[in-house]
């Protein structure tokens, strides 16, 4: 085998580009692809940038509305509630991930763990519910198709026109051709990647780390590199360009369309999760056993009442130095939260189990590998969403219990039970508004670099392995190309 010369590789590279520039199909695909990617990145960047500002403003407004409430009965504030917003991470402008489906805001109130709301896909109308044209979707699904349309005949047309034998016979090595053409299609992949890389730079200006931005673009580079290599491999082995095109499209359908569905369906079948309705019924059944926290005379709190009377050596709740109704509310909230957390934990465990099973399909499809890696790196994965749910639940529990504590300590039992006996009694059954201040300062921060890199390492290994396997196969195919 003759050695590979950089000059020859450059000649092949330039000729491939000359062919594409003269081919209407290639240039049309390239133009549409570039336009689509740039437009998608620009639109998503603007949208996510606005959304980040909007969420900051809404978080601030929500906190202001809460702390600016006048003196009130503390339990009214428990039900007044409060919103916690998840500010989109900088790279979500490229991959909104699960956030588009799970929602980014939670209404926090007493006795309930609400689901996140304001999911883009749930709010949108019509066909956009089926999925928006996010840059991640273009990079993961459409970009491979563009590479196939442009590069399916790279080597096969040389064979069809007998120029392959002609070139080899005059001393040009097959690997020179493969390398030159691979670099040419790689440069197309680079053009597709350019808007993503620009957006990643923009994300860095919004606070994203260099390592993550580089890893994110690198992961897409590896993935598109896989498709470049697959195009080279298939067109080197296929006897005709038509066969090459058919095989590549079939591969695209299997790897990009079918396999992700197979992954999620298998995950649901292997690790089935209980539906929301069923869970809600189970939660209600469990909560019924706890007693009504609004009713201090509920038999469920008889034991509590007895222990307090013994503790403070008094014979009736009115004689307690603390507000028994507040204690009941506090204990009830604690027990209720334990039940809710148990179900939430079960739900999260099931979801994570499904996600982990689905991610194993990254060994069978590089699209599945990149899909998971992209979300993990951009901070829009299920793990990050679960942390948001956990942190907001902690926030909810703390603020409710702080209010319950004020209820216990700052409002007398007598004033509390007489609160509905006229205006004066109503006014007396209040605590100072300074108690509302504990709500301020919630800010959900993205997972740190190390966490995201560790979570993404399987996806990275999967993608790297795909590329390495193809490199070995191309080496083998090159030897039997004639």
């Amino acid at each position, binding site marked *: 085998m*003759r050695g590979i*010369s950089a*000059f*020859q590789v450059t*000649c*092949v590279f330039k*000729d491939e580009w*000359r*062919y594409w520039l*003269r*081919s209407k199909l290639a240039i049309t695909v390239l133009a549409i692809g570039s336009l689509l990617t740039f437009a998608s990145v620009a639109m998503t960047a603007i949208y996510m940038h606005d959304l980040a500002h909007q969420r900051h403003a809404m978080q601030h407004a929500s906190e202001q509305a809460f702390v600016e409430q006048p003196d009130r009965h503390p339990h009214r504030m428990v039900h007044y509630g409060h919103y916690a917003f998840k500010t989109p991470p900088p790279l979500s402008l490229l991959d909104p991930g699960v956030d588009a489906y799970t929602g980014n805001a939670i209404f926090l109130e007493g006795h309930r763990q609400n689901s996140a709301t304001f999911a883009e896909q749930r709010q949108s109308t019509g066909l956009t519910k089926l999925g928006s044209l996010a840059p991640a979707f273009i990079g993961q699904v459409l970009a491979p198709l563009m590479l196939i349309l442009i590069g399916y005949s790279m080597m096969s047309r040389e064979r069809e*026109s*007998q*120029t392959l*034998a*002609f*070139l*080899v*016979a*005059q*001393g*040009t090595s097959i690997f*020179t051709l493969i390398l030159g053409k691979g670099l040419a299609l790689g440069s197309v992949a680079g053009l597709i990647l350019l808007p993503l890389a620009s957006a990643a730079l923009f994300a860095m200006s919004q606070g994203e780390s260099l390592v993550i931005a580089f890893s994110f673009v690198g992961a897409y580079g590896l993935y598109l590199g896989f498709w470049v290599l697959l195009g080279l491999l298939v067109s080197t082995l296929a006897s005709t360009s038509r066969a090459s095109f058919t095989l590549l499209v079939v591969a695209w359908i299997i790897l990009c369309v079918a396999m992700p569905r197979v992954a999620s369906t298998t995950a649901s079948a292997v690790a089935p999760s209980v539906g929301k309705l069923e869970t809600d019924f189970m939660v209600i059944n469990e909560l019924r056993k706890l007693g009504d926290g609004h009713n201090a005379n509920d038999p469920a709190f008889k034991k509590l009442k007895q222990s307090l009377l013994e503790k403070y050596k008094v014979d009736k709740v009115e004689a307690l130095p603390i507000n028994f109704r507040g204690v009941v509310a506090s204990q009830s909230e604690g027990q209720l939260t334990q039940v809710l957390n148990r179900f939430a934990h079960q739900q999260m465990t099931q979801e994570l189990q499904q996600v982990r099973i689905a991610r194993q399909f990254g060994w069978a499809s590089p699209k599945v590998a990149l899909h998971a890696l992209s979300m993990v790196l951009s901070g829009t994965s299920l793990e990050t969403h679960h942390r948001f749910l956990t942190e907001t639940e902690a926030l909810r529990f703390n603020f409710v219990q702080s209010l319950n504590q004020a209820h216990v300590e700052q409002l007398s039992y007598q004033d509390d039970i007489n609160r509905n006996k006229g205006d004066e009694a109503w006014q007396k059954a209040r605590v100072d508004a300074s108690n509302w201040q504990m709500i301020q300062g919630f800010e959900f921060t993205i997972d740190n670099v190390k966490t995201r890199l560790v979570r993404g390492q399987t996806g990275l290994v999967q993608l790297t392995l795909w590329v390495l396997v193809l490199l070995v196969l191309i080496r083998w195919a090159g030897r039997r190309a*004639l």
Partner: protein
Amino acid sequence: MANKIQNSYVIEVDSLCVEINQTSVLKSLSFSVARGEIYALLGGNGAGKSTTLKTILGFHVPSSGKLKIDGQDVYSELDTVRQKTAYLPENATLYPHLSAIENIEYFLSLAEIAKSNEEIEGALTRVALQSAAWRRPLDSYSKGMRQKTAIALALLRSAPIFLLDEPTSGLDPVAIDEFNQLVSELAGSGASILMVTHDVYGACQVANRIGLLRNGELVGEFEAEQPEKIDTQAVHAAFAQVQTRVTAK
């Protein structure tokens, strides 16, 4: 029929055996081509003509036998051998999206050979390709015009050995005459030409020597000092006999 290997021979094939997919395609094939000689390897479909050319080019590895080009072993000196040979495949379309000049420039650049525009135009003139077509994409060319372009490229590569695979197949009579004239000129200037064909009359018109190939074996050889002096009737009769045997077999 084995030829005695002589040093003056440029192509030396001695007892060459080639197996493809465990099928014996060439069976102890021996022949040689001298400098300035046009040797036509004549045979029907599946006789092993193209395999012979591809083995000489190093595309197939023989199971046994010797193969030398200009005194050098093909497999140990493959790069050098390939630089000395100009291969013209059957239906060489070159690159249809490029003009004749662009095709030649590209192939020369891959061979790392620098030629001026004048030299390229000179080669195209020598092969009698109309100048009006030089800058037109090859997808508008006839097969004869593409053959001429490929030969112009071979001339510019200054290859002393030409390997032609069914070169006149699909050409009209005028183009065949032009092609034969060109091949004769090349041989006259010292190039050695090995062509494989199933065209008995075409081979007799242009070749100095004709080898008759059947099932990978050389079963006859006809020779004349001057082309067109080979006994066409005898060759045709022998070819027909070979074909009949093949069919009967």
